[in-house]
């Protein structure tokens, strides 16, 4: 276990969609250690607890990581005020990331603000990856060019059909599996979506990793607040999203 804490400079900031921001942070020591699927604990001025935000992408050469986040409440609203040139206080990289299996095929499924963590892992699989992304509507679509630039095939779904195909990512996933069965499915998004995906993976005998969310305090495994129900050796126990996850084998997770 190895992570850093520090105030790092924001080298770029973009608005990807209404209320969704993409900031690039210059933190060579963090970027060096980081793996796709890990996250950062980000301090929001005036708030006691840090906010967990996934590392969307890592550029080890430039020494940067990207954090893509949505305004969901007062803390992320405060984070959204940060601008290029300012410092951001992060603890990172934290947790266990996604598995990267050389030469194997992956489908990366993201729903809404669960799409950002898919960028880094899809890139790692490159041409062997298909990224299925789901959004409410056209206005909420983000990061599709990032997948494409990395040679990743993209399948876009929206709830209302205003962009890409209309419908759920899970439907697109089943079709894609039928077309070209992958070696692994990785996914991030709402719990109901993850559960459906886990079922699909199981039914098709495909390995599946899901990235979970839970309210956190320390972010490093010390305080035990971020419990999630998992099964180990046939017994249900409380694992911790920040340390044992956020990425879990879907078979371990007890979906409520």
């Amino acid at each position, binding site marked *: 276990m190895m992570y850093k804490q520090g105030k790092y400079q924001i080298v770029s900031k973009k608005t990807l969609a209404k209320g969704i921001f993409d900031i690039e942070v210059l933190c060579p020591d963090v970027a060096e250690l980081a793996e796709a699927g890990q996250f950062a604990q980000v301090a929001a001025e005036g708030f006691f607890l840090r906010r967990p935000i996934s590392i969307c992408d890592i550029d080890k050469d430039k020494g940067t990581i990207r954090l893509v986040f949505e305004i969901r409440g007062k803390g992320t609203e405060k984070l959204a005020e940060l601008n290029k040139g300012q410092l951001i206080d992060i603890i990172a990289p934290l947790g266990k990331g996604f598995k990267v299996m050389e030469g194997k095929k992956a489908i990366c499924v993201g729903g809404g603000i669960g799409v950002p963590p898919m960028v880094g892992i899809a890139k790692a699989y490159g041409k062997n990856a298909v990224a299925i992304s789901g959004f409410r509507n056209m206005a909420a679509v983000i990061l599709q060019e990032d997948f494409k630039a990395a040679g990743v095939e993209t399948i876009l779904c929206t709830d209302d059909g205003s962009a890409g195909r209309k419908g759920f990512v899970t439907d697109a996933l089943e079709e894609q599996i039928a077309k070209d069965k992958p070696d692994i499915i990785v996914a991030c998004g709402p719990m109901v979506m993850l559960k459906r995906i886990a079922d699909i993976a199981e039914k098709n005998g495909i390995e599946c990793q899901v990235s979970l969310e*839970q309210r956190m305090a320390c972010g490093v495994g*010390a305080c035990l607040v971020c419990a999630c129900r998992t099964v180990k050796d046939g017994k249900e126990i409380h694992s911790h999203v920040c340390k044992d996850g956020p990425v879990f084998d879907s078979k371990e997770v007890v979906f409520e």
Partner: protein
Amino acid sequence: MNRLNVNFCGVDFKNPIVPASGTYGYGREYECLYPLSKLGGISVKGTTLHRREGNPAPRVAETPSGMLNSVGLQNGGVDKFLSYELPNLVTKDTRIIANIAGSTIEECAELAAKLKGSDIDMIELNISCPNVKQGGAAFGTDCTIAGQVTKAVKDNSDKPVMVKLSPNVTSIVDIAKSVEANGADAVSLINTLLGMRIDINTGRPILKNNVGGLSGPAVFPVAVRMVWQVANAVNIPVCGMGGVSTWEDAVEIMMAGASLVQVGAAIFNDPFAPVKIVDGLQKFCEDKGINNISEIVGTVKPW
């Protein structure tokens, strides 16, 4: 010149700063930032007789300048502590405070007995956990039971026993006096204040346990007051905690009467908090020409 070493119940701490139980695990997660030897000691995660899974999540809610938690004493049990955590901790050159909690007086006694002869330096008997149904707060809010459980642990222990008090009481002084009368070597305070938050969008408590323990800077003034009251009422040393996040806070709670200081929730905000406090105290002593930090303990002059 070491200006920070303190003797607490006969145990030498290289400095008075100790991460608070439940906020620092067993130190493993922070070793990549700094050596644990920088700390006066570590009060480890509350240990029970058997492994506990704790309460369902969410177990944390943010509050103004603080947080609620409802972990509910998740831990691997005392045997795992002795076989897995302790052997690692003893190599870290820092004092080890075993924080224990039981649901019955007998369980507390058994826990203490299990720790007999081990390499821990002290026991911290938690009679104030607000997040468990049995024992916990029930012990800490009744003078008689608090005394009985203290005695049971003392009778079964070969280590100094510090009893951790609950702030959720009408008179913390009465509880402190009762545990003192029953043999406690020290008291530590405060544990968390019972609180609640509700998600107004769902109409549900944020914590799955409905209520949880409030800690962090928000509770600091309550902690200072209670430390001051207790330090003036008992003749055993006081370990102070509750919202300490800067070296100035540490000085303040020491002036109120704390000889040892635990730092909890502040670590979540800044994992370096304990070592920054140690460094701040060192500089404070140098600047003020204080030979040993213990000199400031209890020095507040009431009006």
